[in-house]
C-alpha cells in the first residue's frame, strides 16, 4: 500500500502551508488604536511617564485619550496588549495584540476584556475581586490585570501636573 501511505502526507502538507504567517499576532498597533478609538482621525506618538509606546488619539485636533501598549508575561510567554484610556481617565477597553501561550487564549474574549471598561487608577483592579478570573488561564488573567493597574497608575501620574 505505498500509495496510501503517501496520501497520508497530503493533508499534513496542506496544513503546514500557512505556516509562514505570524501565528500569534491578532492586532497590529494601528488596528489596536482603531479598535480602542474608532472615532479618532489621528494618533500621535507621545510619552506617558516612562512609557515609550504611547499615542495621543484625537479627532479634529481635540484630544480623546491615550493608547498605551505594553507587555506582561502569561505563564511562559509574553502577552502584548493595548489599553485605551479616555481624557477622563477611564478605561475605554483592552485589546490583546499578541498571545503566544498554547493555553489560556480565552483572555482574548470580549467578555473578559470588557470587565476593564470604565476602570480608573483608583479602581481596585484585583483579579477575583473586581476582575473575574478565567479558570485555567489564571496567570494570564492576573498579569494582564496587574499590567492594566500599572499602566493606569503611570497614566494618572504623568497627566496630573
Amino acid at each position: 500500500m505505498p500509495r496510501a501511505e503517501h496520501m497520508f502526507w497530503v493533508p499534513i502538507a496542506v496544513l503546514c502551508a500557512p505556516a509562514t504567517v505570524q501565528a500569534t499576532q491578532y492586532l497590529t498597533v494601528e488596528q489596536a488604536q482603531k479598535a480602542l478609538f474608532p472615532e479618532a482621525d489621528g494618533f500621535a506618538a507621545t510619552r506617558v511617564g516612562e512609557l515609550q509606546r504611547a499615542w495621543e488619539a484625537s479627532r479634529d485636533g481635540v484630544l480623546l485619550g491615550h493608547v498605551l501598549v505594553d507587555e506582561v508575561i502569561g505563564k511562559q510567554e509574553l502577552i502584548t496588549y493595548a489599553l485605551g484610556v479616555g481624557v477622563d481617565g477611564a478605561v475605554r477597553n483592552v485589546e490583546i495584540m499578541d498571545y503566544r501561550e498554547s493555553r489560556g487564549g480565552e483572555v482574548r474574549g470580549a467578555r473578559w476584556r470588557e470587565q476593564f471598561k470604565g476602570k480608573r487608577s483608583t479602581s481596585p483592579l484585583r483579579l477575583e475581586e473586581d476582575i473575574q478570573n478565567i479558570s485555567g488561564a489564571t496567570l494570564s488573567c492576573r498579569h494582564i490585570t496587574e499590567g492594566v493597574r500599572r499602566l493606569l497608575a503611570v497614566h494618572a501620574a504623568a497627566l496630573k501636573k
Partner: protein
Amino acid sequence: MHVKAYRNVGLMLAAMLPLSAAAQSSTEQKIDGLQQEIERLKEETRRLRSEQAAQKSSQEAAARAAKPAGSSAADQPATSMFGYGEFNYNRNRDPDRTGKADLRRLVVGFGHRFNDRLSFSSELEIEHGIVSADDQGEAEVEQAYLNYQLSDAVNVKGGLFLIPLGILNETHEPPTYYGVERNDVETRIIPTTWRELGVGVHGLLGTSVKYDVGVTTGFNAAKLDDPAFGVRTGHQEGQLADAHDLSVYGALNYRAPGLLVGGGVFSGNTGQNGQADSLFKGIAARLTLWDVHAKYSVAGWDLQALYASGTLADADQLTAANVARAAADPSFSAFAFPKSLKGWYGQAAYHIYRRGEVDIAPFARIERYEIRQAEDPGNGLLQDPKNIERVQTIGVDFKIHPQVVIKTDFQHYRVDGDKSRFNVGLGYMF
C-alpha cells in the same frame, strides 16, 4: 550650523546697510547692536542644543528603566522555566495518631519556543524529597510534549501529556485548588495527575469553547494492584507502556469570566494482549471514564462541583486471572478487580478577607465515591466496604501572595474513620 547661519545673516544685513558718511556713526552703532544680537542668538542656540541632548539621554535612561533588558517580545529568550511544589503535614485520627510530614512534590518546568507556531513544554517532578533504590521518592516526567499551532482553532500536540478529564488534572498547582490534599474523587475515580503518550488535537472555537481530542496509550489491567484507587495503579505514565491497545479521549470546556462548564471522556482496552502477564491474554477489559464539571465564582463565593463515572468491562475475567496469578505466585495476594467507578463532590469557598495580595478563604467540600468490585466469593475475593466512602472536608486557604498558599483542613471519612486526618500544607507556583 545654526550658529553659522546666524552669522551669515548678520553679515548680509551688515552689507546691506547704507554706508554714507553722514550715517556712518549710526551705522556702526547698528552693526554693534547686530553683533550683540548675533552673540545672544549663538548663546541661545548653544543652550538649546545642550538641553536637547540632556533630554534625549534622560529619555533613553527612562526607557531602559521602564523596560529592563529582555522584556520585549523580540528579546524574550526562547527557553523559559517555571515551577510549583508543596510541603504537607498529615496527622491521622487512627488509634496511633500517625503523623507524616512530606515534601510532597517539587516540580520544575521547562518550555521552549522554536518559532511562532512550534513549542515544547515539560514538567519534571520529584515526589517525597529523595529518590534512590532505598527511598520511597519518585522522579517522574509529568508532561513533555511538542505543540504545533496551525491556528487558534487547531493545535496538534505529540508526546506525554495530561488527559483533559476533570478540573484538577490539567490545572493542579497547589494555589489553584482548595484543600491541602487533592480531592478523593479526582484521585481515586479520575487518576490525577494522569498523563499518557500520544497525539492530540486541541483548540479554541471562538474565544470560549475549548475542545480536545486524541489517541493515546491507555491503562494496563495486569499492572493494577490497588483497587482502593480505582484504575489508578494500572496507569502506565509513559514508562515502556504496553501499547497493544490504544485509547481515545475527547473533552469540551466552556470558559467565561468566573465560569467553567465542561466534560470529558476517555476509552480504551486495558488487556494489552497479556503483554505484561500472559494470564491476561485474550481479555479486552475496556475502560471507559467520563466526567462533567462546573466552577462558578460570584460575589466572593467560589462554587465547584464534579461528577465522574467509569466502567471496566470483563472485570470478572480480570479477577479470575488474578486468582490464577496468585495460585502460580504465592507472594502475590489476589483482589477483586474494580468493575464500576463513580463519584461526585460539591465545594464552596468564601473569600472573607481580601486586601492587596492577601486572600483568606474558608471552604467546605462533601464527596462521595464508590469503587464496585467484581467479587469471587468462592476464592474469598470480596468487595472492600472501605471503597464506598463519604468524605467531608472543612478548612481554610490563606494566600500570602496570589501564588503562595498556606492551607489547613480537617477531613472526616465516614466509613473508614482511620483515614480521617488533619492537614497543613504550604504550596507555591511561579
